[in-house]
């Protein structure tokens, strides 16, 4: 088993500049998190807003710098604060964002969207770029004829497929997915989750999957990291975590997640009936 990405004690501070009446302060958004993801595996990072999960995602995706700790991609330490990552390194890690309406340029045809990573990072000739882009469109479940269409001609689910296709153009080993299905309808969400599973198998991809939705995490993750206020409060395999959550915050998350279990509904309906009868 080869480890694709490894983080040791990752820290991120944000500096809030002071003003006349307010002293400057430092907010530690990520407070020393360690993790590792192997090829073909999915690490889900779960947390609520303000937990630092997206900050961590952007550090792993080499978009933002960390303030401390060590990040290794395929065994090589990398710190974008000190050194610009090589094209090769950039190609290995790609990101998919939450909002497929915001992450595609409305003026760019989707064929160009898909070819751009190749244009910027490789010396592949134009005809080959086009061939690969068309091939990738088909892989994510869109017809190659859609090559010349603009993003507004696609639904949210189709756009997310395009964003995933773009992320895969450079044959990455790691995809960082920041809430990739949160903006999608349930039926479309199922399709995109299925697609992500298929692609993971085909390309032996490692996923870092950011989500607030425990039912999605349970479906897709191998390992889970629960974040709260910048700290990893619990880490473990999916089976361990879902069978016996240890940390109080994890338990709170579980308790707050609505469930569609028929027995639970039956109990609730009976409670409501009893209460009404008592009120009359």
């Amino acid at each position, binding site marked *: 088993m080869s480890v694709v990405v490894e983080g040791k004690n990752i820290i991120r501070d944000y500096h809030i500049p002071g003003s006349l009446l307010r002293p400057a302060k430092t907010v530690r958004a990520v407070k020393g998190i360690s993790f590792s993801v192997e090829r073909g595996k999915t690490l889900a990072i779960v947390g*609520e*807003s303000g937990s630092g999960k997206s900050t961590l995602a952007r550090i792993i995706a080499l978009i933002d710098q960390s303030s401390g700790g060590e990040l290794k991609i395929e065994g090589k330490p990398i710190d974008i604060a000190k050194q610009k990552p090589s094209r090769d390194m950039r190609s290995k890690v790609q990101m998919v964002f939450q909002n497929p309406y915001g992450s595609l340029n409305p003026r760019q045809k989707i064929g160009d969207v898909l070819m751009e990573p190749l244009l910027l990072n490789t010396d592949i000739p134009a005809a080959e770029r086009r061939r690969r882009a068309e091939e990738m469109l088909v892989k994510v479940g869109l017809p190659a004829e859609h090559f010349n269409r603009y993003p507004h001609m696609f*639904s*949210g*689910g*189709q756009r997310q497929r395009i964003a995933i296709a773009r992320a895969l153009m450079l044959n990455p080993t790691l995809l960082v997915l920041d809430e990739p299905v949160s903006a999608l*309808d*349930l*039926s*479309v*969400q*199922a*399709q995109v*989750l*299925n697609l992500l*599973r298929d692609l993971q198998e085909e390309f032996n991809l490692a996923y870092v999957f950011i989500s*607030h*939705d*425990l*039912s*999605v995490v*349970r*479906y*897709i993750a191998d390992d889970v990291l629960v974040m709260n206020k910048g700290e990893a409060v619990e880490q473990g395999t999916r089976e361990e975590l879902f069978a016996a959550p240890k940390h109080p915050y994890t338990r*709170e*998350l579980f*308790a*707050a*997640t*609505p*469930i*569609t*279990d*028929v027995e*639970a*509904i*039956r109990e*609730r*309906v009976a409670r*409501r009936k009893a*209460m*009404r009868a008592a009120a009359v």
Partner: protein
Amino acid sequence: MAILTIRNLTVRFATSTGSFTAVDGIDVRVDKGEVLAIVGESGSGKSVSMLAAMGLLPDTATVTADEMTFDGKDLLRMSPKERRKIIGREITMIFQEPIASLNPSFTTGYQIEEVLRYNAGLSKKAARARALELFRQVGIPDPEEKLKAYPHQMSGGQCQRVMIAMAIATGPRLLIADEPTTALDVTIQKQILDLLMELQEKSGMALILITHDMGVVAETADRVQVQYKGKKMEEADVLSLFEAPKHPYTRALLSALPENATGDRLPTVASFLEGEVNR
């Protein structure tokens, strides 16, 4: 007994490419003291049908219905003046984006007092006292201070509590909540849903909960109406719907829930409706 009855509601929007039917012959009935969930995905017309009942749609919308009555009063044929006595007083509504629903330029206290003075007819002083009482009732911490706060100084969950306080200020008999927890974290969602249910149980008002989330439906509704592309697919009490969904679309929605996954792949709605979805 029904408090709101809508029969054969159709809403069309005039667009540059012709008319678009957002709601296509929908019936809605909610009884006194009942919690009705209207569930559907985007484009199902779930919000539009309720905005039509509230009279909040823009001029480009054409609303027709065989019947639209609130507590026996005909909403279709009453004058706008009469309608305003009902809307915002007896029927109130809260929306998905709590921070955007509030006016950023005024304090939350000013905004709730406005409701109390114009819709509940209270004096300035009485409105202030009642506002504080309502803030306490909906569980806003430090209510005296929060009355003086602007929306941007409060969290999303707190803003939704303010919206709920405003919505129950007039003692409505029907509260329509349009995706009230969709923009909120799951632990906050639970608090807000618990609050809505508690208020509903105490006051006996009817509640229409518009949502896309089957989990929210399971934890709140008495009765459920499933909509798809402007049409009603199925209507059932909550237990029957989850226990034995009748319509293929409902079955598809339930099996698309990741927690119901059997094996490696999630069944998709498309596989049930043979390519009807996401064309």
